[in-house]
């Protein structure tokens, strides 16, 4: 960003700590009057060096580290890391373990979307929205807690399976929670549709076209809100997603309102997926039989090779590139998070808007700086 200021121009720094932000980063805005004429993002306040740490940990220890990329979607991060390792090992989890993983990952999607919508409401001054969604989210977290023993950072997936089977009575507990959530989602949608102030803050704000979103490298709900049906669960199915019935939620407007609408619809689809999984859940082992892999293999050597595996994170496309040199530690892991390109696309999106809309645009992206910085 140019340092020289014209008359009636000023630079304001949003952050590194600001209520609008999903984690610390600095947003330098160059303003003319109230209009943003230039913007720049500065990262690095929460850089944890996870890629380097993973090179110095065994594969099993790595599971606990990838949890910390973004604690909101810990299970999806684990799925990506464990999926890479399983491909290198050449093993596949038994069907029951795959169904359990899908249930847990869709529950993760539910709670991530709920928190994302609540935070977005808070950013644009709709404080009660946060209270509504966080109440529902807590119920979902209770279900995850029941299976994994932790609300966030679960360390639950294992190579070739999951750590523990579903507890007794999980289905009986889950069904009422999901039914309540369905009602709540209808209420939220009605509220968004009829609230005049909410509509004025979001409709037509931060509009992305499909071509712009593609060239900016955006994925996830922000891309689907522009009408592009791009979802890794359909395009490149992993686990048992190819056997399940669900559709890709898209909108056409591409603005902040459409992005939240996509998340609402995705919550409905996720509930539908979980219900199917609970009905179809097969019996059997949660680890592949006749192999050494399982929860009791702390040290294992992974055959040399390299793999790039993608999964659908609540925020978009999560990918990991893993290289093994045949030892018990990965040689290199590159983490391609979904929010990284979205955050990179923030400056071009907010150029030409007013300062008040910056929060409405940035918040509707449902960010996580921790994952962008890694």
């Amino acid at each position, binding site marked *: 960003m140019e340092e020289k200021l014209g008359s009636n121009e000023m630079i304001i720094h949003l952050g590194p700590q600001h209520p609008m932000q999903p984690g610390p980063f600095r947003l330098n805005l160059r303003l003319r009057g109230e209009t943003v004429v230039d913007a720049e993002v500065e*990262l690095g306040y929460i850089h944890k060096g996870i890629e380097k740490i993973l090179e110095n940990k065994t594969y099993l220890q790595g599971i606990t580290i990838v949890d910390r990329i973004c604690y909101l979607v810990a299970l999806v991060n684990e799925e990506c890391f464990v999926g890479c390792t399983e491909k290198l090992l050449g093993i596949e989890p038994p069907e029951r373990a795959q169904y359990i993983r899908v249930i847990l990952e869709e529950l993760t999607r539910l709670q991530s979307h709920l928190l994302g919508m609540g935070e977005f409401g808070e950013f644009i001054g709709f404080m009660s929205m946060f209270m509504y969604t966080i109440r529902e989210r807590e119920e979902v977290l209770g279900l995850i807690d029941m299976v994994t023993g932790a609300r966030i950072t679960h360390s639950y997936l294992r190579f070739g399976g999951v750590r523990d089977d579903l507890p007794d009575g999980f289905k009986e507990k889950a069904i009422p929670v999901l039914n309540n959530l369905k009602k709540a989602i209808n209420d939220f949608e009605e509220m968004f549709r009829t609230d005049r102030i909410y509509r004025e803050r979001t409709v037509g704000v931060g509009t992305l076209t499909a071509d712009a979103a593609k060239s900016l490298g955006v994925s996830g709900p922000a891309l689907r809100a522009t009408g592009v049906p791009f979802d890794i669960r359909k395009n490149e199915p992993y686990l048992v997603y190819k056997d399940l019935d669900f559709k890709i939620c898209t909108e056409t407007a591409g603005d902040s309102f459409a992005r939240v609408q996509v998340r609402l619809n995705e919550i409905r689809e996720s509930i539908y997926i979980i219900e199917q999984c609970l009905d179809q859940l097969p019996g059997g082992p949660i680890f592949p039989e006749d192999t050494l892999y399982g929860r009791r293999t702390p040290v294992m050597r992974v055959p040399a090779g390299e793999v790039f595996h993608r999964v659908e994170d609540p925020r978009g496309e999560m990918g990991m*590139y893993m290289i093994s040199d045949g030892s018990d530690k990965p040689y290199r892991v590159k983490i391609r998070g979904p929010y990284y390109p979205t955050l990179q696309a923030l400056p071009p999106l907010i150029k030409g808007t007013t300062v008040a809309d910056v929060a409405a645009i940035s918040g509707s992206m449902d960010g996580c700086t921790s994952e962008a910085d890694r």
Partner: protein
Amino acid sequence: MDVTEILKSLTGKFPEAISEATADSEIRARAYVDKEKAKEVCQYLKDALQFDHLCSVCGVDYIKRNELEVVYHIASYDHPVVLMLKARLPRDSPEVESIVSVYWNANWYERETYELFGILFKNHPNLKPLVLPEDMLGEWPLRKDYEGFPNKTARNLV
């Protein structure tokens, strides 16, 4: 468009620059590219083969071979094939042409690869550290010979 067709078109267009082009599966392919031609190949992939989505750019340090590799993962919004395009760079002067003018979102990936590996991206619009503090520039922390904590990192603290 399937993976054999893509590889055939790529090796047909650049018979000298592309080597070791193989398909790992129906949706994964890999190829080595001459570092001088990396940008040109990316442009061709985007224009002719629908590879309009850059997943990531990253570096890998192969210290035993005394080489760095820069790896581009290029995918598409239309077909499921992901191409892993690699360029070998000498470890003492790693330089490669920037692809920001082809894929806009390569900007941050190249900045990150630069500060972590010391790979210089020529003609990059804004090549400065992204996630590291500026006084760590030149340490190249993701290279395998980085001494790390406490030998180097703590030096600034005492």
